[in-house]
């Protein structure tokens, strides 16, 4: 049986992007339905570090400076029109978050306590933190959804967008707890399904829901994906024990002023780690593993002990521990108390963290080439180019969530009847519905695990032609096995059924990543190729765009319009200024150093 529902605005995904859009649209009077594959309010938003962008804390900062930092760190692949919209609206993101119910960390005096130092890639301090990191964002989102009376279909998986030609008009979904299929007709649809880190399990910091569904839903509806080869591998994640592999324990800033990054033989891989972008550090570590010597756990060595010999280092580490409590906690559980105190080195390797590439959109989040469809949050492509700088994503959810929510509500009020090609919709639904009880030779979970291994080994932090070609062949092989899967017959809470649906999305998303990575014959951002180790601005200042026609992927390279920020622009940290500050500080007596740092890092204040 196919249950039918109808609404003005359908939000697919219930993390930050989806719920902000839903609440905004509902406040404008739209009837809204939200689909959430996992319990709603969960997802990557809830497990985030809770670092949120607040530009212009420093008087020298400006929207232009932020834009420069994002584009320079993104190695010029960013969609600059989108970045511009973001930078103009970014100052309001944190305000909106507090209106949703979050409280940012305050000093004892009651005023905001932003981080006094820039995160990697930022030229200025621009970050607020939240008590208990991302968790309260999830709580606030659930509260806001209840406040405005958004209808949430929990544990409900969108399997296909429906519509008529290039018009999208809702989705077909499976209610996993009951095994019921639903068709939701919607005047406007917003995709907010998050990223795809789970394609690299266990080498990922992401939540289990991130199987790339949104990219595939969009592609199959006629949308295009841009720069899908650009994954952010965050440099520092745990390498053991087994349950903790891939769990993030820091971004470059955690190295502190004197931390050293070494291979297993004790050779330094990279200097001044803290000043480098996430992409640069991860690339250096992956190359070192390729050429040099990894530890027995396949990692590199992050040695924080030199920090503890100096006042500045000690204070910075104290400060970082307070800023990233859950990461330090993970280190404690994996490597023990001494490691958590920075007294023994950490065994670390990059882990899949964020998908920069994604659905191609206009600056107002409308999906290119498809009508009545928006994409926001991590599933959207172009904002971060080849590398995302910290704290921008949570802000992005509120910036674009509210923008798209408003536009969708307004568009819905002007949209007349919804036209849906019912026979195609019913066919898709019937196909998904027929999966339980299918007999065959392979349990879907084993194909999922095989695919994840192939992707990590061949299109992970290090790539080359040989590996990528191998990955494509393997994907083909797994596809053949996919037609021979066996799925238990139960309807309610059937993990095989969910695995089979996710496998289908993961195969296509994986193929898009591999084909895009094959096409980009250079190293840039999160994409590191052993056979083309340099960035090649002459040939590859291009976006790789993927579309699908008659079930076949079509790729092309498009010039990136450098409308505002031009090649050669500088952004990010100013190493010279920092060096001078360090030098001056080091001349002072230890006590004076301590005092200055306590004040600058708010350390005396337990805010």
């Amino acid at each position, binding site marked *: 049986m196919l249950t039918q529902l109808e609404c003005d605005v359908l939000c697919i995904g219930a993390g930050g992007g989806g719920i902000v859009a839903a609440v905004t649209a509902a406040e404008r009077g739209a009837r809204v339905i939200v689909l959430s594959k996992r319990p709603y309010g969960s997802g990557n938003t809830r497990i985030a570090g809770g670092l949120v962008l607040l530009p212009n804390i420093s008087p020298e900062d400006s929207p232009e400076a932020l834009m420069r930092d994002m584009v320079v760190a993104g190695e010029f692949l960013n969609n600059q029109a989108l970045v511009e919209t973001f930078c103009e609206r970014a100052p309001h993101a944190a305000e909106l978050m507090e209106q949703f119910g979050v409280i940012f960390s*305050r000093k004892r005096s009651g005023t905001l306590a932003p981080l006094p130092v820039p995160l990697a890639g930022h030229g200025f301090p621009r970050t607020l933190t939240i008590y208990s990191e991302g968790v309260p964002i999830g709580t606030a989102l659930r509260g806001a959804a209840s406040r405005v009376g958004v209808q949430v279909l929990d544990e409900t998986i969108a399997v296909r967008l429906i519509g008529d030609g290039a018009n999208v008009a809702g989705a077909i979904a499976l209610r996993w707890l009951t095994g019921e299929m639903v068709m939701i007709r919607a005047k406007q649809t917003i995709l907010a399904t998050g990223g795809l880190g789970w394609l690299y399990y266990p080498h990922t910091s992401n*939540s*289990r829901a991130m199987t790339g569904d949104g990219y595939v839903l969009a592609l199959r509806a006629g949308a295009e994906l841009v720069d899908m080869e650009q994954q952010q591998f965050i440099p520092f994640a745990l390498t053991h024990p087994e*349950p903790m592999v891939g*769990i993030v324990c820091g971004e470059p800033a955690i190295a502190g002023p004197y931390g050293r990054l070494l291979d297993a033989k004790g050779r330094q891989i990279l200097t001044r780690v803290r000043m480098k972008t996430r992409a640069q550090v991860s690339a250096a570590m992956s190359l070192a593993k390729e050429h040099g010597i990894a530890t027995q756990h396949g990692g590199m060595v992050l040695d924080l002990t030199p920090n503890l010999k100096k006042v500045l280092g000690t204070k910075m580490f104290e400060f970082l521990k307070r800023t990233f409590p859950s990461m330090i906690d993970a280190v404690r559980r994996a490597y023990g108390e001494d490691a958590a105190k920075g007294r023994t080195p950490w065994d670390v390797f990059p882990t899949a963290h964020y998908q920069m590439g994604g659905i191609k959109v206009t600056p107002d989040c409308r999906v290119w080439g498809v009508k009545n469809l928006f994409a926001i949050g991590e599933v959207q492509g172009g904002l971060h180019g080849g590398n995302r700088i910290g704290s921008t994503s949570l802000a992005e959810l509120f910036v674009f969530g509210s923008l798209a929510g408003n536009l969708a509500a307004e568009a819905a009020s002007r949209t007349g009847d919804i036209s849906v090609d019912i026979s195609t919709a019913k066919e898709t639904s019937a196909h998904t519905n027929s999966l339980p009880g299918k007999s065959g030779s392979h349990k879907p*979970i*084993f194909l999922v695990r095989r695919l994840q291994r192939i992707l990590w080994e061949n299109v992970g932090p290090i790539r080359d032609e040989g590996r990528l070609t191998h990955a494509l062949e393997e994907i083909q092989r797994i596809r053949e096995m996919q037609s021979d899967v066996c799925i238990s017959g139960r309807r309610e809470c059937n*993990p095989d059924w969910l695995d089979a649906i996710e496998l289908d999305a993961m195969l296509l998303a994986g193929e898009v990543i591999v084909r895009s990575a094959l096409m980009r014959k250079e190293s840039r951002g999160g994409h590191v190729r052993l056979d083309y180790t340099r960035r090649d601005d002459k040939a590859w200042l291009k976006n790789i765009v993927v579309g699908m026609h008659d079930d076949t992927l079509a790729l092309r390279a498009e010039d990136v319009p450098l409308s505002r920020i031009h090649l050669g622009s500088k952004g990010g940290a100013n190493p010279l200024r920092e060096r001078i500050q360090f030098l001056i500080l080091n001349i002072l007596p230890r006590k004076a150093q301590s005092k200055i740092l306590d004040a600058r890092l708010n350390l005396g204040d337990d805010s």
Partner: protein
Amino acid sequence: MEEPNIIVERYDPALGVCVPASYFVPLKDGITVLQVLLYISETYDTTLAFRYGCRATKCGECAVDVNGRPRLACLTPAREGMTISPLKHLRPIRDIIVDRAPLDERISELRLYVKSSGERPLGALKVPESYERLIGCLECYGCVSSCPQFDWKKREFGGPYVFVRLAQLHLDPRDGEDRRAQARSLGIERCSSCSQCTCVKGIAIRRDAIGTLLGEGKA
């Protein structure tokens, strides 16, 4: 085959009861309850239904009972002979999955969101320390399993999850509703002589949430 060393109480909706199933899982060093569940599902039975999300103690999806106490599966070391079962006092759906909806619904019914009187966001705000301790609630619903009074069918009693949320709001300097009165109308006095509730993340529910709402101590 080795002797079984793990019991999973799997709820069967057709029978309406939990059926214990035993498995052998090699308990390597550092292995967690979540790893055990994944092992069972990928070695013996892929239809074992359980939830998990981030593996990193932050999403709250993997709350289950271990030897009768609520735990996060990803945070809890596995032990020989342990029993894993669905959270108590919620409606089991299948295996160790329980229905979250009755508690989700409380959020709108009881207006568990900030009813602000229009303060300027990002302005000065005095945040009590106990707020900082309570706001880490993952909404995993594990606490209700440890509460001898809670039953999802009985709406007149709030239970620990609702009380934690009410206390967060009471301590939120922006919230304008009388959350203590709400807690009283939801039977919080029943908690005054009881302190059996536990939190998988170590929140002191009795002291910081219930104590605050009852007006005990200086809070």
